[in-house]
């Protein structure tokens, strides 16, 4: 076994534990890798790399960039410019026995916090086609939830790296999924856990803009602190 390190050295090392890369490093390295690697699902790229060659569409960096662009648009005026999207809040924590069926209820607008969605009365099923659509949506939601369960479990273990792996997977598979809000909250907590405060803060700012009435906002604020945007939220 090894003895604990001297207190002064341990304190010194604590300040060097931050894991960080410049904000644009991922995009730059990703762009170079995309030219060197075969496209996802493809059989290998034998053509010479070209500076203008498109990057693989399935690469997470693109998904992230697209998600950020969409998020920014929605945050600035999406509620006015776009038809209302279904919002699904994933509230329970089904890590123990079989979770209840999808806790998904369509909403025309953001719900006031504190309201349990599953307590709302259920509308009767109108047509068989609507019912089929609901089944498909429920299956998608179950798949989304399964991915986020992995993320949540990892976060519970203090495993931020694997939390981000799972939220990254969710981001790729369900860029417009019903549980985006849940995913973002988990990712923010994981980033903060890794000491990547700048990244966590930036993602939290986008979260506030995109989900200004989120029930998860207090949890996000508790991790990164409420930024300037919180003042706007309170107005």
């Amino acid at each position, binding site marked *: 076994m090894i003895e604990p390190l001297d207190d002064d050295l341990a304190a010194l090392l604590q300040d060097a534990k931050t894991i960080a890369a410049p904000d644009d490093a991922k995009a730059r390295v990703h762009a170079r890798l995309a030219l060197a690697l075969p496209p996802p699902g493809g059989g290998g790229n034998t053509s010479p790399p070209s500076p203008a060659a498109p990057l693989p569409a399935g690469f997470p960096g693109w998904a992230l960039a697209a998600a950020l662009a969409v998020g920014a648009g929605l945050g600035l005026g999406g509620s006015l410019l776009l038809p209302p999207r279904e919002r699904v809040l994933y509230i329970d924590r089904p890590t123990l026995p079989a979770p209840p069926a999808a806790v998904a209820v369509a909403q025309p607008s953001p719900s006031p916090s504190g309201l349990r969605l599953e307590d709302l009365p259920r509308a009767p099923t109108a047509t068989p086609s609507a019912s089929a659509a609901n089944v498909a949506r429920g299956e998608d939601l179950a798949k989304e939830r399964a991915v986020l369960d992995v993320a949540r479990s990892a976060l519970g273990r203090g495993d931020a790296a694997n939390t981000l792996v799972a939220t990254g997977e969710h981001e790729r598979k369900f860029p417009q999924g019903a549980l985006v809000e849940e995913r973002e909250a988990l990712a923010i907590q994981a980033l903060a856990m890794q000491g990547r405060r*700048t990244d966590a803060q930036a993602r939290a700012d986008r979260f506030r803009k995109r989900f200004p009435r989120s029930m998860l906002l207090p949890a996000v604020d508790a991790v990164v602190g409420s930024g300037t945007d919180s003042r706007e939220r309170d107005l």
Partner: protein
Amino acid sequence: MAAALVDMSERARFDAIFEAELAYVWTSLRRLGVQERDLEDLSHDVFLEVYRRIGTYDVARPIRPWLFAFAFRFASDYRRLARHRREVMGTEAEESDPQPTADRLLQMKQNQHLVERAIGKIDPDRQAVFILHELDETPMAEIAAALDIPVNTAYSRLRLARDEFRDAVKRESRKETRP
């Protein structure tokens, strides 16, 4: 690694690892003495190699020690080139914590530079064990597995590395306080 990676294709697994761990590889390379201007090149090289070897990754093991082994090998090759011999580490470390006061932030950056300079004085083989254990908080068994050395050797290297680090910190601190 996590169950999250188990059912993925190798390409999806690589993408997920890149997305989650680029910053870790970047930071590890910097800790291992790669200069700021070369971090992008070496991070690219590391992930190319990770892509080639992704099939050998055991998802039951933590990802970071496995990635560190790549970073360590590339950094070792890099340092063998005379033109890359360590100059002054961490000339411009990124500001990563917006919360502390300016004084505290300055102190943190100074400490980080001091740590990285002192790590640079540790024998390279011991350096890997030291970084994995003291900065990444990796269990010794995982360190031994990642570096393909016996656990007792890992402990031995850590003890020696601590001595070297302690001495280096003293020397570097004296340099800083010298008028």
